[in-house]
């Protein structure tokens, strides 16, 4: 049982009368206190900050605590286009975040590259980190972002996300194609065996 | 068993010795300072013990003075160390000869 916990966290437990409500409680807490990492990239970052402003007020959801240090953040909102130069940095910050962690891909550029299908932009941040919720729009308005966040919260509370992620081998198992002059293809393995 | 003054005095003597040996053994000026503080503390214990034994507050007064003088000593001492180490990053008391004119 202990080894289960060490491997999979709380979700690895065989649930019984005591642990099941505990997990519900933890789910409740996590959903209501998911602190975002300050990870603004482009236009979407402006809308993300606007969502924190007085008209929309992310604080209602307990989310005004933008943590500058990834160690203390729970949700990474990838707000904006991810360039090739930024990709390793983004991945590093994701790795620095502690489990459990979630990713919202905000805007079409982060989700799919958007209108910038060119040499500079990563065509979808889900090639780098596992994404839990995609918020559409260019940029998504605060209402859209809040919708994405509440969707994430629902999923956190129901514990669905980790289960799904486990089924997929803890995230984005991506093979990277080789480009001329670049290194050998690498398998990006996410998971808890770090 | 009762704790008598002798206990305190022996403890103080041991602490003093530790500080003394440290002062001789270590070469890092900062640590040497710390050892001096240890010795001062040993003396303080003695003072307080004797103050109680002789029923005279003068011993405690002396501790007070020791505290103040220790603070002054540390300020000057650390200033010396800073000035020295800025010139030469570490780290031996032998470098203190650099302070000769």
């Amino acid at each position, binding site marked *: 049982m202990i080894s289960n916990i060490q491997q999979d966290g709380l979700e690895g437990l065989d649930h019984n009368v005591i642990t099941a409500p505990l997990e519900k409680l933890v789910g409740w807490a996590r959903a209501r206190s998911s602190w975002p990492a300050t990870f603004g990239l482009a236009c979407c970052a402006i809308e993300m900050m606007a969502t924190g402003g007085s008209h929309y007020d992310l604080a209602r959801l307990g989310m005004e605590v933008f943590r500058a240090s990834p160690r203390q953040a729970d949700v990474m909102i990838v707000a904006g286009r991810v360039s090739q130069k930024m990709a*390793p940095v983004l991945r590093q910050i994701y790795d620095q975040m502690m489990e459990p962690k979630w990713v919202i891909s905000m805007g079409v550029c982060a989700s799919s590259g958007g209108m910038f299908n060119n040499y500079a932009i990563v065509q979808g941040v889900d*090639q780098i980190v596992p994404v839990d919720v995609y918020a559409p729009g260019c940029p998504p308005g605060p209402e859209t972002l809040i919708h994405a966040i509440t969707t994430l919260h629902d999923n956190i509370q129901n514990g669905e996300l980790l289960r799904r992620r486990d089924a997929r081998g803890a995230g984005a198992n991506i093979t990277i194609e080789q480009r001329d002059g*670049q290194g050998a293809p690498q398998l990006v393995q996410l998971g808890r065996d770090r | 068993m009762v704790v008598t003054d002798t206990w305190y005095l022996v403890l103080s003597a041991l602490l003093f010795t530790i500080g003394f040996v440290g002062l001789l053994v270590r070469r890092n000026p900062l640590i040497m300072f710390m050892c001096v503080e240890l010795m001062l503390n040993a003396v303080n214990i003695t003072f307080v013990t004797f103050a109680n034994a002789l029923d005279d507050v003068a011993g405690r007064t002396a501790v007070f003075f020791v505290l103040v003088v220790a603070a002054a000593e540390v300020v000057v001492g650390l200033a010396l160390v800073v000035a020295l180490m800025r010139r030469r990053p570490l780290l031996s008391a032998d470098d203190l000869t650099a302070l000769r004119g």
Partner: protein
Amino acid sequence: MSDTGETEQAETDVEAETGAGDGAEQQEMLYGCPVTESRGQRVIHPSRDRWAEVAGELLVDGWNMCIDVTAVDYLTYSRGDGAVRRLPPGVEPQRFEVVASFMSHVRRERLRARVQVPADDPTIPSLYAIYPGSDYLEREVFDLMGIVFEGHPDLSRILMPETWQGHPLRKDYAVGAIPVQFKAPTAQ
């Protein structure tokens, strides 16, 4: 955005100073370079060899700010419609063209310089020593177009990762649909 009468006044002054007209016949000259008009804006065409020298003259003459440095790759210019580059006589068209814009705050005027840079030797003197403001702009041109600015103190990639290969703004570099390149963080 047309120039005012004041501009023309200044122009004649400049010509008087520099004593234009030792080159081609009928060709207006400025700082010893052919000058043309493009949509009402004045453009000079210095040669690559004289580039640093001309820039020095420009600064002395009161063009006190280097506003912009960029470059154009004319590799596929005459696509389709068979458009022709309009260059004054005496200026040999090359594949690359470095374009720099200068401003004179006193005269409230702009001046553009277009320098031809051949494809087989894409180098040009750096303006950094004369106009330090061209620092980043030249680095950008180097990064995206691959033109080497000789004498620049820190000519390195500025927008692309340092290990990137190729120069994206060249016309023989595909625009997009490039497979995603990703390197795992090496040290954490």
